[in-house]
């Protein structure tokens, strides 16, 4: 992912998510989304999310502060240490490329819980 594309995607996220903030950590650009909404039926209904743009990767990494229970069951997930904080990660093969928008990426990842 080039610097220009990372900048475009970061700007999109900051424009579309209220209170979104960014940070650089090593070579990685992080975007913290204070609140993303899970599909209906999830408990809790929303949580903070983190999108990490690593120039050496084709797709961003996506993390959540909370993994929601979907119809009473919590999907498999793992812990990840990102920029000194604990985040939850989950496996989901989203067909997303650089031509798509950042909003499509976040929305697509959250469909894992539909």
């Amino acid at each position: 992912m080039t610097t220009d594309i990372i900048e475009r995607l970061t700007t999109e996220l900051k424009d579309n998510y209220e209170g979104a903030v960014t940070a650089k950590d090593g070579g990685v650009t992080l975007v913290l989304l204070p609140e993303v909404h899970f599909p209906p039926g999830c408990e809790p209904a929303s949580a903070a999310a983190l999108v990490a743009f690593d120039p050496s990767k084709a797709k961003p990494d996506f993390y959540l502060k909370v993994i929601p229970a979907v119809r009473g069951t919590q999907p498999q997930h793992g812990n990840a240490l990102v920029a000194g904080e604990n985040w939850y990660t989950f496996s989901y093969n989203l067909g997303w490329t650089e031509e798509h928008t950042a909003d499509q990426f976040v929305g697509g990842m959250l469909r894992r819980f539909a």
Partner: protein
Amino acid sequence: MTTGIEVRIPGHLWGRLWEEVRRPGPREPVVFGLVSHAQTLNRTLLLVRDVIVPPTTAFVESKAHGAKWTGAYNISLLNEALERGLGILIFHYHSGTAQVRMSEDDKTSARQLLSAFQMVAPGRPHGSVVLGDCSAGGLILVPGTSRISKNFRLRFFSDEMTTFPILAANAADLLSHQSQPLLEGKVTRSKLANLVVAVVGLSGGGTQVARHLACQGVGELIGIDAQRVTRDNLLATGEFGWLDILLRRRKTSVVRSQVWWINRHVRFTAVNAFVPEPPTIAALKRADLIVGCVNNLNARADLQEIAWRYCIPYVDVGLGLYPLNPNDELSEIGAISGNLFVALPGGACLWCTGFLSDEKIQLEAGGDRSYLRTKLARSRQNSAAYVASFNGVLASLAASDVLQLSLDYASTIAVRKQFDALSGAVSEVVVKKNPHCPKCSSVLAAGDPLWQ
């Protein structure tokens, strides 16, 4: 709970900084440090991420005491700090072994500069530090306040860990400590009593490390383990008993009792959580030293990252039993190998030496099923093996390294030691820092991210 400020300088930067601030020349040398920062429960850490030696063209003639540099250089320095999301520390040097203090000229110019730096880059700390041969002084301005603080600790790493100010003691006590640092005395006791050590993983190695540290009288021992005692643990350490299993006691509870019996002045803090859960991270951030006794590479990678990010020495302990034929459950033992790695900030890390790699971590996470089978077989063998005494050797070595780092009783410390339990020999493995290590360049002294 006391709050304070601590400046930490990794070893690879300290050597250059110390040389440059004392370089003889036409004017008082000045060196700039670019710093990140982190907030712990009781301290603001200023973590030096880079050192910049200004060119001679940056300076202008000054009638006042000290060096003076151009406004243009200030702007270029601020631009670099802003670009990298870091603050600025100004370092200079006053010779002598007495407590160093900033001159009135130094203070006046520092107050002006720090306020100006904060206006441009308010999210990170700024400061002016004078280094002496045995002390440091200066002024620090942390984010979110306009109050400049003159009270801070400075810690730097080389082959050892040195902290200024050196504890207050009379000349006789200091001399006694310098000549016989291992003898119990006022300075030795104070140094150990001021130490916070986190031990992660309270099984075969960790329980025995904790016992030694309690005996040494460290101020606070943070025990981190989420599990309860099981039958397997009885073969890995002599610190647990059958009643602990019967009562389903937490490992941290057992260690707390042991520590109290050995030395009731040691404060034990139990963290019943896994790595990298939030209580674990919060506890590790405020430790002076981390001893990792974990049994997987993922946890090791996380501990290494936390240690590097906040400039904390990390002592890693591990023991493995390796069958001659990993696919044969009845295979003879090929090797019983223990490793002890002392990662001092700025020196070699577990990634530099290839002990950790993305490939190994992926394999451990389940990318390769044949590897998993091997791992399963190995773990079956480990769980059934009598390894308490082998773990004891490694725990003793780790506790000795903690003692060496805190009391500085030897001039060098072996970064990696290998224990061959079949021969009983411990040998040093020479390792070198990889100058191109991606983890060192991205994580070391990175601190907390600066959100904006």
